[in-house]
């Protein structure tokens, strides 16, 4: 019951398909990436470095890291909790829970930002409360984190659930019968089995968190040096016709994307058996 092995193309149709794929991938996928890197360095290395060495650029990088450093661990803890209760127990409404879990994948990032304005904006549901107590959520760090958390919420859970479903509960039940307690079971049996999938999920989640644009753009308020993450910084500099500044910042994120792809590919090759089935290439 094996699939047909990949072979060198032989027929004319095969070569045509291969040629089409190479052209299409080059044109649609590769060209934009190359364009970013070439434009960023179009005036040499010095202007490139100078463009990144501004207080605003520093602040944007710092804020991006900060937001991700808060959002990703939150979603990791949530992902483990959700995967545990969904794959280890039977309960009513599980499929509804799964659908809600997937919702952030299917809503526009702009909506993922909008909802926080509707809740915590000046005219939002809780706006008056916040104003009275002088708490800033919108146009400040909390809303950036909330928007990022919403957008990236399913990433880690969605890696863990199919894997833990596959693995079943036998090992954990065995550990239980041998007298292990809850945390022992988790740290000694479950975690070693899911660690690579967890890392994979964290990787995808981090990449998305650092690059998120639409959602944070809505809640940020674009206060330079204060609430601009790196993607927002790109937008501002680009709109100000600071091409080198925009593309230099973009090149950092593009480099990050490449690193993500490399790590992701390594994980898929090296730990194929320990990732969810859909990830084993």
């Amino acid at each position, binding site marked *: 019951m094996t699939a047909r092995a990949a072979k060198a193309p032989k027929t004319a149709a095969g070569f045509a398909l291969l040629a089409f794929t190479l052209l299409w991938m080059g044109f649609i996928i590769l060209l934009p990436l190359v364009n970013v890197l070439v434009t960023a360095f179009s005036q040499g290395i010095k202007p490139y470095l100078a463009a990144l060495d501004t207080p605003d650029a520093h602040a944007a990088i710092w804020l991006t890291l900060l937001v991700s450093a808060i959002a990703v661990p939150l979603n990791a803890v949530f992902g483990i909790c959700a995967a545990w209760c969904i794959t*280890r127990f039977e309960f009513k409404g599980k499929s509804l829970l799964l659908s*809600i879990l997937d919702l952030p994948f299917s809503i526009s990032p702009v909506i993922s930002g909008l909802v926080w304005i*509707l809740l915590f904006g000046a005219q939002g549901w809780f706006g008056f409360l916040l104003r009275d107590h002088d708490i800033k959520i919108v146009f400040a760090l909390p809303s950036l984190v909330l928007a990022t958390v919403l957008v990236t919420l399913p990433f880690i859970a969605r890696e863990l659930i199919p894997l833990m479903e596959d693995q079943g509960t036998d090992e954990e039940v065995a550990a239980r019968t041998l007298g292990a307690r809850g945390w022992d079971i988790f740290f000694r049996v479950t975690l070693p089995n899911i660690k690579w999938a967890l890392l994979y999920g964290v990787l995808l989640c981090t990449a998305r968190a650092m*690059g998120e644009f639409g959602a944070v753009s809505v809640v940020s308020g674009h206060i330079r040096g204060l609430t601009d993450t790196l993607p927002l910084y790109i937008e501002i500099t680009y709109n100000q016709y600071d091409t080198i500044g925009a593309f230099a910042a973009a090149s950092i994120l593009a480099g990050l994307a490449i690193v993500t792809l490399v790590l992701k590919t390594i994980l898929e090759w090296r730990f194929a058996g320990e990732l969810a089935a859909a990830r084993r290439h």
Partner: protein
Amino acid sequence: MTGQPDTAATEPVIPDHFQAPHPAKGTTRVLPGFKITLGLTLFYLSAIVIIPLIALVARPWEHGWQGFQFVLTDTRVLHALHLSFITALAAAVVNAVAGLAVAWVLTRYNFPGRKLLDALIDLPFALPTAVAGIALSSLYASNGWIGSITEPLGLKIAYTPIGIFLALTFIGLPFVVRSVQPVLAEFEAEVEEAAETLGATDFQTAFRVILPALMPSLVTGFSLALARGVGEYGSVIFIAGNMPYVSEIAPLLIVIKLQEFDYAGAASVGVIMLAMSLAILLVLNITQRFFANVGSAK
């Protein structure tokens, strides 16, 4: 296998006293932590997803049905929604065809650089949308690498719906490829060989045997690309030009209405977009159920 009664006399009969082994999953509550993890999950989902979405759905009605109706009949809104949907649809269709070809080549053919190409498929997932946005915009602008070639030929791409379509094509490709690829990779060689021994040509095998088997995954990829395209913002906003009635997409209208402090208006557009995505996913679900009935389920 479905539980159809067996009519043939040659089949073994399961004795009455036979009991299927108890599935491990049924041993509910043997493991600890049900209440705490379920509680945390529900709390987190409520705080991050459910309550915010309720706030979204509840908002448009503050000026009554008429307020919502006003937004719904605003030609600028309608035009933006129409544009978002049509460009996303066109990109999803193109991606369904191109993505199928790419997935086919990546699984069937061995050539130098195959692994690299395979890894590159996920670039649109990994590359922040703003980066893709400025890159595409500068590529297709009149002084860009491609724009400077096409514009003298009379084809203006940047700041037109064609530019939006191209950006959504970039974003959507991995959805189709990654949906189709695993199914194609696991397609049993024996099934193809069976078709061959029965006299089918390569084309007949591809179109009558393999393609129907790929349909469920192809539809999934298409729908995901479409849903994503309808709501896409970052990669589109730079290349779109954002001219009302021409190249203004629906998500941008939300941003504009927020800047005007028209929360209800922004929420109205948001609700319509949310409904569109959910409708796409619903149709997908129904289609998949149809495919499952057709026996693609094992």
